[in-house]
């Protein structure tokens, strides 16, 4: 762990960093005081907190802290949802242990984001009365198949949320990289839950399930087209649909998951050298799509008791 190397890295993208730091010597005093009792493992959190203080004065779109707090809300939703897994019956041991791993990750993400945000973090939501995993009576979340369907929906939403938010925090490379490093873990979870769903709640070998079109109940590990609107068509459509581009960063469009034009390049069997023999679904599967904060909030609010927690 080399603090000065971090400063150097930041300087590459923000030549003003020295000015910023220099005019805030109190930050360094704070840092050196901490250093004596900090282990190397804790250092990144403290450094992140200092950078937040430094960068908090620079307007960056929606605001790095706002983005991180929104992510934190989503992580709380996921974490509390996985805490409720113990009430689910009928899952194989392999599926139970996979959910245990995911639950640990989501709890860790909560802790990590709180550490980065420090005093700027939102209050932890109450463990009861804030989230409604029945989505107002629509689901029985103790039913194993339903539980996994909701879990996949939450993870796919999380992947789209982090992806859409990444450009909003790209001015702060520490925060950006942390967000990317959570984003891919959410994608691993989504892949796993999709495998568990196609192999079945009782399966001892989740990796050996065979996907069945149109993928509502037995999805691939990746999103094919719009997956026929997801695990619960009519309820999960927005998770695979297009977002709202009103406040999208320049050059970014929140397309639906069946998008096959990337960076101005139309993907098809004629534009991809070897693609003539490829199934057309492959061109959308190869790319995930992001979502704007507003659309993600509307999806997540389905699991909010007040319907407004994510606003």
């Amino acid at each position, binding site marked *: 762990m080399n603090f000065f190397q971090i400063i150097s890295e930041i300087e590459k993208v923000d030549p003003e960093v020295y000015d910023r730091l220099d005019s805030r010597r109190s930050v360094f005093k704070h840092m050196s005081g901490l250093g004596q009792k900090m282990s190397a493992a804790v250092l*990144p959190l403290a450094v992140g907190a200092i950078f937040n203080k430094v960068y908090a004065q620079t307007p960056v*779109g929606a605001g790095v802290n706002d983005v991180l707090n929104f992510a934190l809300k989503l992580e709380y939703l996921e974490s509390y949802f996985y805490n409720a897994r113990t009430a689910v019956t009928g899952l194989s041991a*392999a599926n139970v242990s996979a959910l245990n791993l995911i639950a640990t990750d989501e709890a860790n993400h909560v802790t990590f984001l709180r550490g980065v945000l420090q005093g700027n973090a939102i209050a932890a939501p109450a463990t009861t009365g804030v989230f409604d995993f029945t989505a107002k009576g629509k689901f029985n979340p103790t039913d194993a198949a339903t539980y996994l369907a909701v879990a996949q929906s939450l993870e796919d939403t999380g992947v789209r949320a982090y992806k859409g938010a990444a450009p909003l925090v790209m001015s702060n490379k520490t925060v950006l990289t942390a967000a990317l490093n959570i984003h891919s873990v959410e994608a691993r979870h989504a892949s796993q839950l999709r495998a568990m769903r196609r192999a079945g709640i009782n399966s001892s070998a989740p990796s050996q399930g065979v996907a069945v079109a149109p993928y509502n109940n037995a999805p691939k590990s990746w999103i094919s087209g719009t997956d026929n609107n997801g695990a619960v068509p009519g309820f999960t459509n927005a998770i695979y649909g297009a977002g709202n581009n009103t406040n999208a960063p320049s050059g970014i469009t929140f397309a639906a998951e069946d998008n096959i034009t990337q960076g101005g390049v139309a993907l098809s069997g004629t534009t991809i050298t070897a693609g003539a023999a490829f199934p057309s679904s492959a061109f959308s599967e190869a790319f995930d799509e992001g979502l704007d904060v507003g659309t993600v909030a509307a999806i997540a609010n389905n699991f909010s008791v007040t319907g407004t927690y994510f606003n």
Partner: protein
Amino acid sequence: MSTTPNSDLLLQEPRVEQPLYTPIKRRSFFMYAGATAGATALVLAGCSKSDSSPGMVSVGSGDAGVLNYAYALEQLEAAFYTQVRTGTYYTGSTITAAEKSIFDDLYYHEVIHRDFFRAAITAAGATPIKSLTPNFGTVDFNSRTSVLATAKAFEDLGVAAYNGAGQYIQSATYLYIAGKIVSVEARHAAIIRDLVSEGTFVGNDIITLTSASNSSVTTNNAPANSSLERAMSPAEVVAVANNFLADGSKLDVSSLR
């Protein structure tokens, strides 16, 4: 520059190569840094790295460099899955329907990624690197174990590479596209890891479960018990990837920073 709080910081040319014009405040920072062991790394980071090594393929610098870096890795993955489909593990009678379908999709996806990057780099007015020649001499394409282990290595490496390269991308558009691809790579990685061993879609080898990450680029790192992907710097990635590339196709990423 020193008075403008701005969002176009990313467009600024780094000053590390212009020590003569270093503002006074920065020099005072160096003096501050000089009191610690950190000074060595700081000074080294300010030095220009050596130019492209002879016989190696430089991915270049800037956003085009990151795109070519991604293009190189996608070439490697596409070549691997193309060859997987010719080996007896894939063509034989014992492969499961699930595995065959997964390897078909991974082949499609990675070829699409490869050809997408070639098209996107050209569209951006930059020059794609040449078609690389892989060296899969250590892979037994007739062996399920060997194919899965290599696939796992490539997919995990790809995720770590994209995550570690995001910070070098200046354009929000390209950052977003990289994000669209990396989550698909992570989906691949998770299912391949489960094919190797059920329930290993995450693990401390790839995410910070029980130990902190320690990339040479500190921005990549997170503490233990945070469950963040272990992002890798371009140099760390090619140290692995070059083992699978023939002489004359090995990658030089020293201009990516």
